[in-house]
């Protein structure tokens, strides 16, 4: 094991859990969170300057994570991959406060729960059953006393309404 290898593993051990949580909060599922986390650290092996201080390394990791997440969502939006933010190899200074990872996760969680509370009753119910209690569509339909098909339609409308509300609060 080289000294550099040892240093990488220190960085890895110190940050892998936080990076995974950060990514998971934004893609919402384990397989994709694992893939993106792996991308971030494999890129770190290639590009991260390990002689930088801890704060700069943390900022680098979160910046690369954010870019990986943006790339992931771009496939869903089917936007052309031109003119978007670019991951610069190596190090760039990051403004203080730009990386507040754990706090950012809390913010995301608080934001979605606040959003749920503002939804009309029926929409809130269907999303709580599906996401908080993690019931299947069948179970959700039974709880609400509606058909499977209607449960799916209700879920669709609830998510659309929530997304619209979210967009309008984001400005």
């Amino acid at each position, binding site marked *: 094991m080289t000294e550099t290898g040892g240093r990488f593993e220190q960085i890895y051990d110190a940050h892998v859990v936080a990076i995974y949580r950060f990514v998971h909060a934004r893609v919402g*599922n384990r397989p994709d969170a694992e893939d993106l986390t792996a991308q971030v650290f494999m890129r770190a092996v290639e590009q991260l300057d390990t002689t930088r201080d801890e704060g700069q390394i943390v900022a680098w990791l979160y910046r690369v994570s954010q870019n990986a997440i943006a790339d992931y969502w771009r496939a869903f939006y089917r936007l052309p991959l031109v003119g978007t933010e670019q991951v610069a190899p190596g190090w760039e200074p990051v403004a203080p406060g730009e990386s507040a990872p754990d706090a950012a996760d809390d913010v*995301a969680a608080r934001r979605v729960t606040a959003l749920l509370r503002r939804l009309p009753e029926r929409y809130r119910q269907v999303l709580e059953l599906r996401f908080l209690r993690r019931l299947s569509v069948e179970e959700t339909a039974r709880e609400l006393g509606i058909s499977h098909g209607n449960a799916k339609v209700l879920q669709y409308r609830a998510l659309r309404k929530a*997304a619209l509300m979210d967009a309008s609060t984001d400005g």
Partner: protein
Amino acid sequence: MAPRDDATDPRAAERFDKYVDAVLGRGRPSPDDVVDRDEAEMARLAAELSGATDAAAAEPDEAFVEQLRLRMRQADQGIDAVRVPPPVRVAPAATADAGARIARFRLSRRDLLRGGLTVGAGLAAGLVGGAFIDRALNDAEAGWTDQELVAGNGEWAEVAVTSDLPSGAVMRFTTPAFDGFVVNDDGEIRALGATCTHLGCTLQYRPEFNDLRCPCHDASFNLRGWLANDRRNWQQDGPYPGDARAYPITLPPLPRPKVKVEDDKIFVYTARI
């Protein structure tokens, strides 16, 4: 066009439920179940909801953390030797030809990248035209470059003789530090890593598709070392031969250690162990 609130197509609701089911832990979410911008916003919200409400999956799996640690360690050891700028070396006369050919190609590719980026800043991708340029743009954007890895403290390992590697041939080789393929791509000899850049499975050469295929999750790399069957490729080139759906994520290209040909022998520059 924003759909009206009172008119939800049950088929859309049915399809989108596949995305929701996947994000809730019953599979891997696919962009194929999300058809427009509105639904992409919905998907993103559903993902955040799921992330915020699934305490178990919010913690990384221990096996995953260990596996990724091993991958990083291996990659770090493999790359350690090539992180350092190349030593100044006088190429033996016999290798000058092959070296010059490879260098010339690479220069033009880099020029293309540079030119493409300048153009790309001002033009829509469609105007630039040509899948190759589009892809060059994308790759450059992702921070990946198509440069050969150049080793510092390494050694030249003999991996094949040229008579065993006619044009179009692909051969596996193994050195103490590196598992790879050596490729004769229409006269250009190239070495590529044999390890998938996703989770480290060993790639298999498939002559019928002329690619390097990962047996674990079906990623395909072309003989330049680039992922060839992800969504971008499908969007640009259509379905990948033999595949039912696009590989869902992007991956870094395969490492490309330096190659030289000397007295009909092919050498690859890898780490000294």
